[in-house]
């Protein structure tokens, strides 16, 4: 693995910040009732999506979950298309048909995110199988949580990826909880990655709060997959600094735990790193901040100005036209 360049760091920083600011705005809009439904925010986990997706091309695929905004932004789905979807506008990436839990844009290699826990993993295998058959050296990344690892679908998928040597990287974001349930209560193993042993594939643990660590580990796994060497189960230890969904009071976690993780928070951490290396100044960061805010503002303005779908649009796209 070659060293991460300064430019790459800046890109990753800016991407992580974009996710953070975008979602903070989502939260406000949700509170204001301008985003209907529910919302699963990614705040605190940005390093995982960004560190992984930094390696991906548009012809690579990313499959996501009920918590997809970070993956979508990292994979290159346009902010305005996401925001319009969340606000149920016809300009949304799914024309307002799908909402937050299914964000994705196939034009940049991300099909609609899947809200059924674990269910994206066999689909990821199918996409990877197609990539392999088509002679592409592309890969598919399946993101899922620590809670998902106990779903039967994930087991079947890991095994199929293993026996067929598929170019798929399974990225488990272990944020310590599946909804309110601590991981330690639903698994005897401490590390999700150790489950890889059951399939004879590599299992790797990375510090999911450190985008550089994620970037390095993901880089290896993705390169391995591109070389035809098969799948990896990459576990990123991380933490969501927000509630599980809409107004989760977070009463099942301790404040101490939250504090520890808040200190490890990935965006500040990369800023520290870059500043320590003298690569950036506070002014540089402030500049990025402003750029990011502007793109988020633009996305909200676009979504705001967009019309709602027609009621009878509901009838379209049941079948492919």
């Amino acid at each position, binding site marked *: 693995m070659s060293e991460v360049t300064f430019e790459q760091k800046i890109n990753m920083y800016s991407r992580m910040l974009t996710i953070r600011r975008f979602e903070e705005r989502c939260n406000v809009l949700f509170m204001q009732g301008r985003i209907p439904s*529910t919302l699963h925010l990614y705040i605190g986990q940005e390093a995982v999506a960004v560190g992984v997706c930094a390696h991906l091309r548009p012809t690579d695929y990313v499959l996501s979950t009920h918590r997809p905004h970070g993956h979508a932004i990292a994979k290159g789905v346009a902010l305005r298309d996401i925001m319009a979807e969340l606000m149920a506008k016809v300009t949304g990436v799914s024309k307002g*048909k799908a909402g937050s839990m299914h964000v994705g844009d196939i034009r940049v290699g991300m099909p609609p995110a899947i809200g059924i826990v674990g269910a994206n993993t066999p689909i990821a295998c199918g996409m990877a199988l197609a990539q392999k058959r088509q002679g592409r050296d592309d890969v598919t990344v399946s993101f899922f949580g620590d809670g998902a690892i106990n779903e039967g679908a994930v087991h079947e998928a890991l095994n199929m990826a293993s026996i067929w040597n598929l170019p798929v990287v399974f990225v488990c974001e272990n944020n310590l909880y599946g909804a309110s349930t601590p991981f330690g209560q639903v698994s005897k193993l401490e590390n999700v990655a150790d489950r890889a042993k059951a399939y004879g594939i590599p299992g790797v643990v990375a510090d999911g709060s450190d985008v550089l660590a994620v970037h390095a580990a993901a880089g290896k796994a993705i390169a391995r997959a591109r070389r035809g060497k098969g799948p990896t189960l990459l576990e990123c230890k991380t933490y969501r600094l927000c509630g599980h969904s809409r107004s*989760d009071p977070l009463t099942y976690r301790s404040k101490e735990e939250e504090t520890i993780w808040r200190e490890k928070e990935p965006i500040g951490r990369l800023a520290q790193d870059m500043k320590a290396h003298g690569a950036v100044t506070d002014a540089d960061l402030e500049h990025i901040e402003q750029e990011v805010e502007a793109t988020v503002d633009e996305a909200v303005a676009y979504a705001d100005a967009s019309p709602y779908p027609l009621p009878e649009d509901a009838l379209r796209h049941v079948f492919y036209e």
Partner: protein
Amino acid sequence: MTMMTIAEALREGIREEMLRDPRVFCLGEDIGIPGGFGGAFTVTLGLSDQFGHERILDTPISETGIAGVAIGAAMAGLRPIADVQYGDFLFCMMDQLANQAAKMTYMSGGTVSVPMVMRAPVGSTRRGTQHAQSLEAFFTHVPGLKVVAPSTAYDAKGLLKAAVRDDNPVLIFEHKLLYGSKGPRSEKGALSPIGEVPSTDYVVPLGEGIIRRIGTDVTIIGKLTTVYMAMGAAEKLAQEGISAEVIDPRTLVPLDKELILNSVRKTGRLVVVEEDNKTGGWAGDIAATVAEEAFWYLDAPIKRVSAPDTPPPFAPVMEAYYLPSVDKIIAATKSLF
């Protein structure tokens, strides 16, 4: 008598059954975590404090496993009440419910019973395709399963208690907009079916429907939220001189068929209302039964007011178009006169 929401009524029903019978226990995702949600819609909130974590058992996210554990525990002498966070996830445990739970008694020649309850929230609440479906029709089509769908707090508690005491697998479909869950888990657009619930022990026997409103000109059948829509429509229709009888079957399997047939024999007209997709829906099955068994009493076509054949859309404007409504029921009813 206390005034309760459906979420509270279900909670009380569970509490009473757990106190009455030590074999009763709950299992599901996030149902008993200290400081947690009490299930996706607060139904089991606080019960783990009272009964402990053995009897309010938090599970991994493993729907097949949850159903299988409930089946096995029921076969071996316990009385599980299992829980799925959204009805849509029943598809993940479909084999266990349709091939195992439903057929175990039959496969054993009647010697094995599976006294389990599976609770599942259904209905469209702006969460889109995978968190908004109505699942009832899939399960009424599986012989060996009983299916209930309470629309009031009184029925919710009474049917739950009857389900727990039944020796067969019973699915309870609960509508998200009817729970009346409070605080952070409350739902936008919720109806408020707060009702009087006796604190004494009572059951609503499985298989008994109820006439919610007496009428003479047309029978309107609803379930869950559509009972309320039917009532609303009936009121407005009355102002226009049409007297509608509103029936809430409460239990879908076994169905109180005679109640329905007798009503149609009296009114000569039938509108069946449900939130589910039209093709293959439960409403069609009621229509077919009437077209077969009360045909000679019919004065008009049988109308279904159902969702169109699309996944549940997310955007509220499309969702409103998709869902049945008082106005749609009125229009359908009037078309029969």
